[in-house]
């Protein structure tokens, strides 16, 4: 059964001021309802005023996503009653959005982008005494109200959760490279997803926060719809809510027809002309695709690895380049970043930016391997402690007395001892049973507390048992 997914992504733009007033957008960790004014609270008589910086940022995103930017745009009022809405209408864009008709390529496939527009974020709601459907009351924090949101709407071009994940990751990296978005901010990126099985009705899942949850929500929803079809039931057209705790989706409201927001033009704002000179005046930084190409060329690393480094996170790509200034074995560097470093970051559920991993200490680890002071195997152990703590790898080696056996003679002694103690295994080995070799290697490693290089040990055993 073919799955069809289309998504709407809302990202907080990194402007200093809100979209229609001069209040600060830096609301995280602030006392609720402090970063507010008559405009973002929708007081009678207040009027919005467009923050041009938000349009600059929108234009950059539209360009990066290969969109056509409309030469004249305006804002509209989208009306609906909700306690997070200061005016009970949202200033958004309707007929003529900022940009239309773009695409983003992932996994060799073009995902079409239908439109990009700007709108104001509503307040943050805190549900008290339950979740969205069972809360006894709701607290509203208008610090978030009025923060510029960029809404990016795709066509239903995704056929798997994996494609959505790749798309979001690359999109996030692009927006980060444009310096208009900070992926580390909670609620900085929210997704609405429309999911259907070919030939069936679609369900919309609203307001999923964060990458990981998008994947969980989509996976759950696909299984739910497939199961319904399997038992001969129909998927209903409805809006669903994703519960991050139970990792499941629930009916929020049935939708028999399109919601009617009664759009009118925002009469407090004038049309905004977006001239070619305005567009040209905005400097486009190096974007992820170009950066991957450059990495391949400049550092001679495999494209697959370069893509991982760049698309996951701009900070990771920056980290790679910072390391490259003090460590010239780029292939080794790239390999360690995409394998063990990422694995450990994921394990600890942190990003490179949040971690205490720094170029100097990370390169120190790689140099220990290069100098033969530790084995790769040992390095894999050390990095597990290094990533969450940021402790110097040399320090870790010292503390744990994890020094590689330097001399072959020392190692030979251990190997000989193991041979002596495991007569049967040695006989088996001589009889051609390969498994016995691994058994003996294992014993040697155990004795050397994994400080020996297995490859060297293997050669030694083969030599000494001949």
């Amino acid at each position, binding site marked *: 059964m073919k799955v069809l997914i289309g998504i709407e992504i809302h990202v907080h733009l990194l402007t200093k001021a809100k979209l229609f007033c001069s209040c600060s957008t830096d609301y995280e960790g602030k006392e609720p309802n402090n970063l507010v004014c*008559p405009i973002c*609270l*929708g*007081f*009678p*008589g*207040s*009027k*919005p*005023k*467009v923050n041009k910086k938000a349009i600059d940022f929108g234009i950059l995103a539209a360009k990066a996503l290969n969109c056509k930017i409309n030469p004249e745009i305006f804002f509209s*009022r989208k*009306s609906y*009653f*909700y*306690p997070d809405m*200061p*005016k*009970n*209408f949202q200033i958004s864009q309707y007929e003529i959005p900022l940009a239309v008709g773009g695409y983003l390529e992932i996994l060799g496939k073009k995902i079409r982008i239908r439109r990009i527009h700007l709108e104001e974020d509503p307040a943050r709601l805190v549900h008290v005494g339950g979740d969205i459907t069972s809360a006894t009351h*709701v607290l509203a924090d208008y610090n978030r109200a009025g923060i510029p949101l960029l809404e990016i709407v795709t066509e239903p071009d995704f056929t798997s959760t994996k494609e959505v994940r790749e798309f979001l990751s690359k999109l996030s990296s692009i927006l980060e490279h444009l310096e208009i978005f900070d992926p580390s901010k909670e609620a900085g990126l929210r997704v609405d997803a429309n999911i259907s099985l070919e030939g069936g009705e679609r369900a919309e899942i609203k307001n999923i926060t964060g990458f990981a949850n998008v994947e969980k929500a989509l996976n759950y929803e696909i299984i739910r719809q497939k199961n319904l079809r399997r038992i001969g039931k129909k998927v209903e057209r409805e809006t669903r809510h994703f519960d991050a705790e139970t990792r499941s989706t629930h009916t929020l409201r049935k939708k028999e027809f*399109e919601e*009617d927001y*009664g*759009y*009118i*033009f925002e*009469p*407090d*704002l*004038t049309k905004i002309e977006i001239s070619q000179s305005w567009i040209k005046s905005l400097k486009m930084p190096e974007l992820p695709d170009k950066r991957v190409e450059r990495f391949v060329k400049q550092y001679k690393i495999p494209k697959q690895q370069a893509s991982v480094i760049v698309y996951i996170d701009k900070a990771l790509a920056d980290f790679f380049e910072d390391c490259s200034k003090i460590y010239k074995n780029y292939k080794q560097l790239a390999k360690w970043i995409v394998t063990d470093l990422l694995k450990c970051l994921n394990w600890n559920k942190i990003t490179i930016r949040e971690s205490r991993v720094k170029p100097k200490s990370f390169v120190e680890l790689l140099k220990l391997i290069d100098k033969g002071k530790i084995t790769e195997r040992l390095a894999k152990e050390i990095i597990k402690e290094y990533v969450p703590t940021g402790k110097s790898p040399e320090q870790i080696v010292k503390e744990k007395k994890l020094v590689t056996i330097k001399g072959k003679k020392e190692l030979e002694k251990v190997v000989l001892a193991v041979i002596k103690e495991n007569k049967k295994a040695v006989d088996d080995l001589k009889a051609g049973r390969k498994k016995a070799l691994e058994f003996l290697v294992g014993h040697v490693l155990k004795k050397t507390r994994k400080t020996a290089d297995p490859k060297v040990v293997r050669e030694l055993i083969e030599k000494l048992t001949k």
Partner: protein
Amino acid sequence: MKSLVKEHIEKIKSGKISLDEFISEIKKKIEKIQSEYSPFITIKIENPEKKGKLYGIPISVKDNICTQGIQSTAGSKILEGYVPPFDATCVKKVKGQGSVIIGKTAQDEFGFGSFSVNSFVIPKNPWDKTRVCGGSSGGAACLTALADFPHIAMAESTGGSISCPAAFCGVVGITPTYGRVSRFGLIDYANSLDKIGTIGKTVYDTALLLSVISGYDTLDSTSLEVRDEDFTKYCEENSKIKIAVPKEYFGEGVDPKIKDLVWKAIKKLESLGAKYQEVSLSQTTYALPSYYLIAMAEASTNLAKFCGMRYGFHSELKGNFEEYFSQIRKLGFGEEAKRRIILGTYARMAGFRDAYYLKALKVRSLVIQDFRRIFKKFDVIAAPTMPVIAPRFDEVKKLEPIEAYMMDVLTAAPNLAGIPMISLPCGFVKSLPVGLHLMADHLQEKKIIQAAHTFEVNE
């Protein structure tokens, strides 16, 4: 008529009167007027903090214009007790010029009406207490007519709310070009139509206050970036005015005695050197319905914010959000507000939006073109302001909503087009004042002020 304002400014300057004595004197007068005619929703007399062009001049402010520290309800119960945390730009400007703010004048709820009866304070006509003042700036015009002391009113028009009460109360009212005066701090009725203007006893008075409150404001994106003008310098006689007289404004529904008076006024101007010609404004018929569609569509969104959550009328928290705000809106809004919310919402809903809201916007462009065509050849358009004299309260009560809306038939088009207009008294019918309406092209306030002044000094 001599301008009391002009005299007063001189007297204060030369020290002939003390401001404190003057203020305590007008306090008594204001209380007396209020007890008989109710032009105010709130009386609050504030001594000036600064000296300037309007030093010592009492200014009343329509209740839908926000005044910091003074209750501003826009005539609605849903905003009862609401004290704005900021001054509207125009209020800031008059305070900066040393005026004496005296209080907030009565109006139809949010400006919804032509008689100032849709509210909790209903002003009475200065010429006959059984009659209405007109609306929605009824309190402003009422007070202006009654004050025997220098005073100018700050009013507001969406579809005729300055011209109508000025005509019914026999005073002068200027509605400037849309965008001439910042709307920052104006409690919205229909943002694309709302204009703050002035009402005074003489053309000079209205021009003076308009000069102070006009000008570009960064807080209102729709305010116009034009250079400041001193409109009082246009209070000069001009004998070379070219007047257009549109036949659609002298149609069947207009009281023949009013038509006669307006024609007399036009002939008077002719005798002073002006030239006139009859013309046709063919889009006039469509102006009224499209005005109401746009105004109501915008109003229905503007009123959504009033839900008893953040300011204004509150009640005990009961039920869910929808139940709570429905109850607040049921109790807080008057009948006309509810009617306009329903009609306005209908006009912008899918399936009707194209036929009503969007079509009305197209008509608006045609109405503007219609006026532009006339103003290529003429300086001003002259017409009656209102089709009738001020009706009695009992007559108004019997009107169907559609009949009440028809009151704006002569003022809707210029308001829809956003052109400047002035209404000034041109005689009496049954001892009640009649207004002459003069309109000019966008930003040509100069022309209506000259024409009005020429008529005024020779009347």
